């Protein structure tokens, strides 16, 4: 029904040219059966709620969130003026071909199936995943969980289905970790959210292979607002991975997700993101986990691409001996701003948090680390260790670090280290003298810089990360 177009508009309206985004930079011309139109008002929210056949409580929740969104100012006073260029009236908030994902790839419409095949999703599923959800614009096109895993009682579906099939669990945890009013974009997501994963792991169940979601934006002038809610019951364990891509358009695309994690007593959640957004995407995401007693939440966050990313995964350490960890890698290329970091809110004794952030700035790219560590006076035995390392590739690259550490009381241990280094001309010459091209030399330096973090990833993802970095660096030199 449609033709594939490899979009080649790199130098037209976009300041970023020459970056190889070949992985995600293609689109299919789709016709959408469900389209909420352009712009945002109460009727947009009504439309979304209606096509999903939602219960009245969630419809009301959305309408209230819309009011909050409209009332809240943009956080431009502390981040980037670039946010002001976002025009909420020119965005399409809901596009889909239906609300029910397919259980086999054969049933998925041909163009959508081809998209995910090009991105390697079915192949990864066969190789090492326990389940996959593939979201195309506003809804999941495919969703499947291996029988062995669902037999253990694990629930894995998109939020649209979960609201219908498991309202009791959904409602109990939804919006509790990240309230609607947390920030303007969490309010926006709460008003128009669609898709995203819902996962429940029963007590004691350790899911042996990762569950994965892939978020694909295909349409122009579009906003993707997935909502993910993961609950790991007592003593259970889960690794969840998400990947994201979009084709490059000359107009802005918005991605604004909300991700809430709940790790009940002794549960462990590892949440891995490898995003490779095209350079016109505003990626404004709120991610937070709630760790109960002796639970552990670990965010591994790799931010490559996008025009502006603002994302600060956090952990609220609510129970005694809870542990939180954020490992983040950001690569800011020409014309890009990666404003990333972490939030660690200690709310119980003997809680431990670790933040390791590594950023790479290429050309005029800008990387910002913004962190919050909060330990109140009445607690004892809390520990935080924060390490921020920045690597500058060119003399005009930029990095900033804004750590906000509030520690009250004298029974805690807090450490903060930061470093900035630059790839030197001598280092590049040394590598070139061994036969590597300038691009290969840069790429090797960058991969070396993040090597100790990348080693902690599942193998398939560290290979993917290395490949993405190679692509970025190849395009960044002369």
């Amino acid at each position, binding site marked *: 029904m449609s033709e594939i177009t490899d979009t080649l508009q790199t130098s037209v309206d976009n300041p970023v040219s020459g970056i190889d985004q070949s992985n995600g930079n293609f689109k299919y011309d789709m016709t959408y059966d469900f389209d909420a139109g352009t712009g945002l008002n109460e009727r947009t929210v009504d439309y979304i709620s209606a096509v999903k056949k939602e219960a009245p409580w969630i419809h009301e929740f959305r309408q209230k969130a819309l009011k909050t969104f409209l009332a809240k100012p943009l956080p431009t006073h502390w981040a980037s003026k670039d946010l002001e260029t976002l025009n909420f009236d020119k965005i399409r908030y809901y596009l889909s071909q239906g609300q029910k994902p397919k259980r086999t790839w054969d049933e998925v419409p041909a163009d959508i199936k081809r998209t995910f095949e090009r991105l390697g999703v079915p192949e990864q599923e066969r190789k090492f995943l326990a389940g996959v959800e593939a979201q195309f614009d506003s809804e999941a096109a495919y969703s499947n969980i291996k029988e062995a895993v669902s037999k253990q009682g694990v629930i894995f579906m998109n939020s649209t289905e979960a609201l219908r099939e498991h309202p009791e669990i959904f409602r109990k945890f939804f919006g509790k970790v990240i309230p609607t009013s947390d920030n303007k974009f969490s309010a926006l997501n709460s008003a128009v959210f669609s898709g995203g994963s819902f996962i429940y792991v029963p007590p004691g169940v350790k899911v042996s292979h990762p569950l994965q979601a892939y978020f694909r934006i295909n349409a122009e002038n579009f906003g993707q607002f997935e909502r993910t809610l993961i609950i790991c019951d007592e003593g259970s364990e889960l690794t969840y991975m998400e990947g994201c891509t979009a084709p490059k358009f000359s107009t802005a695309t918005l991605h604004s997700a909300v991700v809430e994690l709940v790790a009940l007593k002794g549960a462990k959640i590892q949440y891995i993101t490898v995003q490779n957004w095209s350079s016109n995407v505003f990626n404004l995401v709120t991610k937070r986990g709630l760790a109960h007693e002796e639970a552990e939440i670990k965010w591994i966050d790799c931010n490559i691409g996008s025009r502006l990313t603002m994302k600060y995964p956090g952990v609220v350490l609510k129970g005694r001996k809870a542990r939180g960890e954020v490992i983040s890698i950001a690569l800011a290329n020409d014309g890009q701003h990666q404003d990333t970091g972490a939030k660690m809110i200690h709310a119980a004794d003997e809680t431990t948090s670790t933040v390791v952030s590594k950023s790479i700035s290429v050309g005029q790219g800008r990387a910002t680390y913004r962190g919050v560590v909060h330990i109140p006076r009445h607690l004892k035995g809390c520990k935080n260790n924060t390490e921020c390392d920045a690597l500058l590739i060119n003399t005009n690259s930029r990095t900033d670090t804004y750590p906000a550490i509030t520690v009250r009381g004298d029974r805690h241990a807090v450490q903060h280290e930061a470093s900035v280094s630059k790839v030197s001309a001598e*280092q590049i010459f040394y*590598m070139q*003298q*061994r036969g*590597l*091209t*300038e691009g290969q030399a840069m790429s*090797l*330096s960058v991969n070396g810089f993040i090597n*100790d973090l990348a080693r902690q990833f599942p193998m398939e993802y560290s290979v993917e990360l290395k490949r993405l970095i190679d692509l970025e660096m190849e395009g960044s030199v002369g």
Partner: protein
Amino acid sequence: MSSLEIKNLHVSTGDKEIVKGVTLTINTGEIHAVMGPNGTGKSTMAKAIAGHPDYIITEGDVLIDGKSILEKESDERAREGIFLAFQYPSEIPGVSIANFLRAAIQARMAEGEEIDASAYYKRLYQKMDLLKIDRKFTARAVNEGFSGGEKKRSEILQMAMLEPRFALMDETDSGLDIDALRIVSDGVNSLRGPNLGILLITHYQRLLSYIVPDHVHVMIDGRIVKSGDKSLALELEARGYDWVKHEFANA
């Protein structure tokens, strides 16, 4: 047989001319030692031949088998078979020696061709045994926290693995104690053969009693002022450079 021809080479850094017309031909199978006091342009010449962007060749030519290499980037020159053993090798944090060499070898292969990992490691371990390098060494990041001796041995290991046609060895003996000097020299001697030409840059005769050169050249003030066989090195050792300088000044 291949030849590296340096023809009337002039090299500047900034506004300053350092190398002022050097002519020298190195054939594979030969070792040429270039000796001379500090600051006479020996290292500058080596870096310029390797294509360092800070060293500008203002006149003359460098040719491999009659073809000029000056239009080529430093990495292309490396792949043509030029290897520079650095006096001060750079650190590459987080990149292991094994991965670095693997990337360097991969860069020499045709597109679509993949390195055979098990054969690669087998060869790497062979060369390491030859250079008396501990196997654990391969997992360490390139030159990071290496002692002077380890850095030089790592340079020789890279040379052994990359099999250049012409090796420019820049003060490979500096910073080595006598044991390390012997190990490094043994390594170089083991690589010696009909397919490798070596330009050995040194201040001291000491190195040349371990690596015996076929030709010795004395460089003073950016020019080669005297050439001879290995006996010239011994004469320099006995009489110092002043003798050559005087001879040069009077010439």
